[in-house]
């Protein structure tokens, strides 16, 4: 047993302090207001405090810490993207992820599993080769492998997928990992609070005051705050916040659903993704299968679940892993994914001075959490976009310089 646990048995009182700000009144003004206490918002707060010495920061959250997409995603972390901008950005994220548990003194269960993106068609094989080549160019460990390699890694997989979609190859990305999603938000939240940041839960932003093209304040359900800098990190609620400042973005919201099985003994070490079968799957440390599929095919600002999601996903799961027939699905849920036309995020400055966007994450915001916090903190502190995010600016839509990341989507959306 690790020594760290001894103190729990040897102390009569639980020897742990509060992790997050105890509820207090809002101050009249803050240097920076961050909307959204998910992983992204809290990471930005953490790096603002740690790396830029900006600690007079309020993170406002209408619900609770990590209650949005941070707590709803399927926790896959990878950097096998398609565009140079994407690969460099997510690679920087993976580098940060690897040290995060030790940085936080909090076990995030960051578990490197190896990530397969299966190709069932010759066009998918071409895309995997493209991604592998771009990845290798930037030093990211990805390679195009054949079906035999897949079979060796997971002998129980039905390589023909029940005859429906034979696996022709795969992009294998050894650094692919999973992590305990909630703990990421808690770690960043604690780290930020320790450095003086305030987290206000159950505090909804109802308006943002803009004067002369500059942010001057924020209206909340608990009163007014004066501030010149607002960072919006609210994923599926982005359109509601951008409406408050009158900014148009091409972000649109689709539900993204997931489900989890009852726990079972470990049999699946890797992460598998199939574009043709629209599934992704990993097995958590608790032994649950965490499963996801493609976006719901219509725009909807809701986190309702549907039956046909579980039906389609289960059918495809059994095509690939028929022996899971007796495994039971415990729970399903849904999040709101903020999609962009080119599948790359929208980050950085906006036409409103002092209003910064961290949005457009679609289906892959979780894996970007550390690098996003770090680069957005830099951007907010210096009022200038960090070099890693220049490809993700809002004005790229106006300038027709899109960052086409659709080919790196795990499943067809």
């Amino acid at each position, binding site marked *: 047993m690790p020594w760290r*646990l001894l103190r*729990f*048995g040897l102390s009569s009182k639980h020897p742990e302090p*509060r992790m997050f700000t*105890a509820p207090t009144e809002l101050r009249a003004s803050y240097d920076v207001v961050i909307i959204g206490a998910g992983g992204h918002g809290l990471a930005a707060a953490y790096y603002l405090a740690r790396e830029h010495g900006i600690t007079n920061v309020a993170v406002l959250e209408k*619900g*609770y*810490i990590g*209650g949005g997409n941070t707590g709803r995603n399927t926790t896959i972390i990878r950097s096998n993207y398609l565009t140079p901008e994407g690969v460099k950005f997510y690679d920087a994220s993976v580098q940060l992820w690897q*040290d995060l*548990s*030790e940085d936080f*003194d*909090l*076990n995030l*269960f*960051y*578990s490197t599993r190896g990530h397969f993106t299966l190709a069932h068609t010759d*066009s998918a094989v071409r*895309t995997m*080769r493209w991604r592998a*080549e*771009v990845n*290798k*160019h930037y030093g990211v460990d990805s390679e195009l492998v054949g079906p035999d390699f897949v079979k060796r890694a997971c*002998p129980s997989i039905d390589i023909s997928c*029940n005859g429906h979609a034979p696996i022709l190859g795969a992009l294998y990305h050894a650094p692919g990992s999973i992590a*305990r999603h*909630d703990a990421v938000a808690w770690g960043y939240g604690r780290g930020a609070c320790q450095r003086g940041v305030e987290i206000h839960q*159950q505090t909804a932003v109802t308006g943002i005051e803009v004067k002369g093209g500059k942010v001057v304040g924020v209206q909340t359900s608990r009163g007014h705050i004066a501030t010149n800098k607002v960072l919006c990190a609210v994923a599926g609620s982005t359109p509601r916040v951008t409406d408050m400042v009158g900014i148009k973005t091409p972000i649109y919201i689709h539900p993204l659903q997931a489900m989890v099985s*009852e*726990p*079972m*003994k*470990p049999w699946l070490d890797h992460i598998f993704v199939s574009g043709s079968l629209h599934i992704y799957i990993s097995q958590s440390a*608790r032994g649950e299968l965490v499963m996801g599929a493609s976006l719901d095919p219509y725009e909807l600002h809701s986190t*309702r*679940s*549907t*039956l046909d999601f*579980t*039906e*389609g*996903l*289960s*059918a*495809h799961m*059994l095509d690939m892993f*028929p*022996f*899971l*027939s*007796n*495994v*039971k699905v415990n*729970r399903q*849920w849904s999040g709101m994914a903020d999609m962009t036309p*080119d599948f790359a995020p929208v980050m950085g400055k906006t036409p409103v001075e002092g209003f910064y966007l961290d949005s457009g994450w679609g289906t892959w915001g979780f894996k970007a959490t550390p690098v996003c916090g770090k680069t957005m903190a830099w951007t907010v502190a210096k009022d200038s976009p960090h070099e890693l995010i220049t490809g993700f600016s809002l004005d790229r839509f106006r300038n*027709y310089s899109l960052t*086409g990341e659709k080919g790196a989507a795990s499943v067809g959306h």
Partner: protein
Amino acid sequence: MSRLPQRPDEWIDRSRQVRFRFEGRDYVGFAGDAVSSALWASGVRTLGRSFKYHRPRGILSMANHDVNVLVQDGQRLNVRGDVVPVREGMDLTAVNTWGGLAKDRVRFLDRLSAFLPVGFYYKAFYSKRWFPTWERMFRAITGLGRIDAATPHIYTHKRYDFCDVLVIGGGVAGLSAALSAADAGASVVLVDENARVGGSGMYQLGGDTAQREAVRGLIARARGHKNIRVFESTLAAAWYADQWVPLVDADKLTKMRARATVMASGAFEQPTVFRNNDLPGVMLGSAMQRLIHRYAVQPARRVVVTAANADGYRVALDLIDAGVQVLAVADLRDTLPSCPAVEKVRARGVECLPGTGIYEAHADGSGEVTAVTLCKVREGVADTSTARRLDCDGVAMSTGWAPAANLLYQAGTKMRFDERLQQFVPDVLPEGVFACGRVNGVFALDSKQADGARAGALAAAHVLGTALEVDPVLPGGEAPSHPWPVVKHPSGKNFVDFDEDLQVKDFENAVQEGYDNIELLKRFTTVGMGPSQGKHSNMTALRILARLVGKSPQQVGTTTARPFFHPVPMSHLAGRGFNPHRRSPLHGRHAALGAVFMPAGAWERPEYYAVPSKSRIDSIHDEVRRVRTKVAVIDVGTLGKIEIRGPQAAEFLNRVYTARIDLLKVGGTRYGISCDETGVLTDEGVIARLADNVYYFTTTTSGAALVYREMSRLNSEWRLECGIINLTGAYSSVNLAGPDCRKVLGPICDADLSPEAFPYLAVREGKVAGIPARMMRVGFVGEWGYEIHVPAEYGPALWDALMQAGEPYGIGPFGVEAQRLLRLEKGHLIVSQDTDGLTHPFEVSMDWAVKLDKPFFVGQRSLKILKQMPLKRKLAGFKLPAGYSGQVPQECHLVIVNGEIAGRVTSIYWSPNLGHHIGLAFLPPDMTAPGTAFQIRVTDGSMVSAEVCETPFFDPQDLRQKEQA
């Protein structure tokens, strides 16, 4: 096996013995037994081990949330012993043990519990070096049952069903609701997850046999009612929008569409929280009653009841009737109400102790309960000076209930906490959803009947459109739930969540750490996240949190109740699966010719036709040569085929395609491309104008469904007067190509094929071999050619006629690979292979196909802007030197300039007609001049030199495919 005398409505069939094994020992039960009841009857008390501390556990609920009694049944894992019927020959093992239930090698974890506080795994084990080792250990220890990779793919039936009123729960309230809705004329389905309807009315008797008679009457009426169908052993697994409820039974999933739902799902009895409340022998009072009345099993010999409502006294009475010695009823309430149940218990000589709770339960070496310590308890604090020890082998917990409101939450019901009832009850119900019985806060038998009748009548009125006003049934009597069923103990082990081994102090510690709202508390402690999804733990956790933060349960609120109510097997959800495979009408012809098929979207298409004794590539090259020198035919029936008719058909297509479709003459065709709003190329095809108001056009194979969907969507906005008809499956089509194609088609076709009458890019309607056909002069592969479309059922006849007519000319089929090579020789791109998610027409030199001066088309605005901007890349032809023998680049290998990515190869083939490799690649615009050399990096990192060249590579003037002016 020891059983009580025959019970009047027992579920077991004493005439049928069932032999099974558990943990390597043989047992006998009866048909109708649950695994747990059969084992309990055989004297087995320790049925499983807990999730975290591996403590011995026995029966808790017998109600499908005993997740500490999960067993492995061969290939079936995590089988719930408390509800799954025992079957002959079962060989069962407890899931969560190392080395067997009795000698579980990790049971020492219980002794280390002080070092393993809530969330302990977050607080250690994270050094980069050691985490992988720890993780392996964690994964091995957690995880419950095992999968067997030899398990077959189980296909389960699905069916659709409909009803006016779906009643969920077949207890007294549900039966009453079903009857009143059915009497009003509604068609009713009554579902109950139990093997028999009747609910608590059949086992929570308190010695009242008249009650059972009443329930029997309801059951008989429901079974006999022409408007009621009763589904037993059927789980209503969730509630989805528009009254869409999956019903799960042993061998199928029924998707029920109801017009109204009545939730009569009852309530879950909640454990009392005291030290060692998890010992085998300590169980819910209702579990004891189920054992007695359903399975004729005596739960224990000497029982102490901890109570806080009348139900506890009814338990005592049922126990006494079953020959159990009830030592005492310890009631958490300060004063005992003078109700009949209490009086009856007193009359049987049982000590009834007000203001008293169990401070602690004690175990023997086996870990099973042998005694309890009772103390005076006030607000959860025991006065240990009043401690009194009673030896017993069973403890019944009857201190409160939580509503089984999961589906009500899923339906969007607003719930409110009723302080008097100490229960959440529906406050605002969604339209068409009704609640009755315990889930509605109504507990007494006659009240439940009235409440069910009320809800059923309202549901029927909702469905039948009749107006009805009925008064609510007010819950009467005492509160069924105690506000604080928790007795503190300095040594803990007072469990709140049995799935996750969570004790009271875990919640206190979590709140101390700042996890002080219900959602954070749930995620940090994992309360309610085990397989029972909080059925026996969420309510107590909420009470604890409310006390710790000084709020009411109403203010604390509940967590979201997500599907499913109980876990549902993937086989049921999957059903037979749906993987549409499409085959062309010519599939059999291809197979007979030796076709090797490849997937193309949902279609199977001939990749090539294998020639015996020849390699794949030689077979393909043979096909290519046949097209170039003789005549050959390819099945292009997988292309999307859409017809648009109507006065505004031209206007519609003009808005969708970038070309001037309105200027196309009747009898002509035009190549068309479409873009999205950002100007990105989305699809291509040939558009034919058959008449003024009739267009017929093709799309790519993979794009067919999307194009049709998008066009339908667009016209739902534009509302132009035209109809869009997807004829993809209705037509079969082939492309007949090659220098001799006119000679083949001429004799069997009634159209004039002379170039004057049927010029390049014309469309004609006529008959081929007597079959009505649409024919287009096309040149995709670079030869004289006709694309012939006929009704799908005539496809094979057309194919046979062409093959027969072509025999003298050496006709043969060609497949997709040959076509890809032939089109590459002509420099034609394939959308999605030679384009990507950002490619606009100017990048692929299709400026000629984009008419920016039209009034409007999708993507026009973007293309006008892009036209003014410098190109970032351009698709260009390239070749490798003749005789090149090094590594051949593959599609998507990168073009490298000065060490940076500058482009990529999109297509590459060796051309048998040209004798060298040809390809298309995206390049920087300043590198696309013919003759420019560039470098391609192949997989192993080495560089290959290539040279830009003009396209078409073959027959650059297109002399072969069209008549010369």
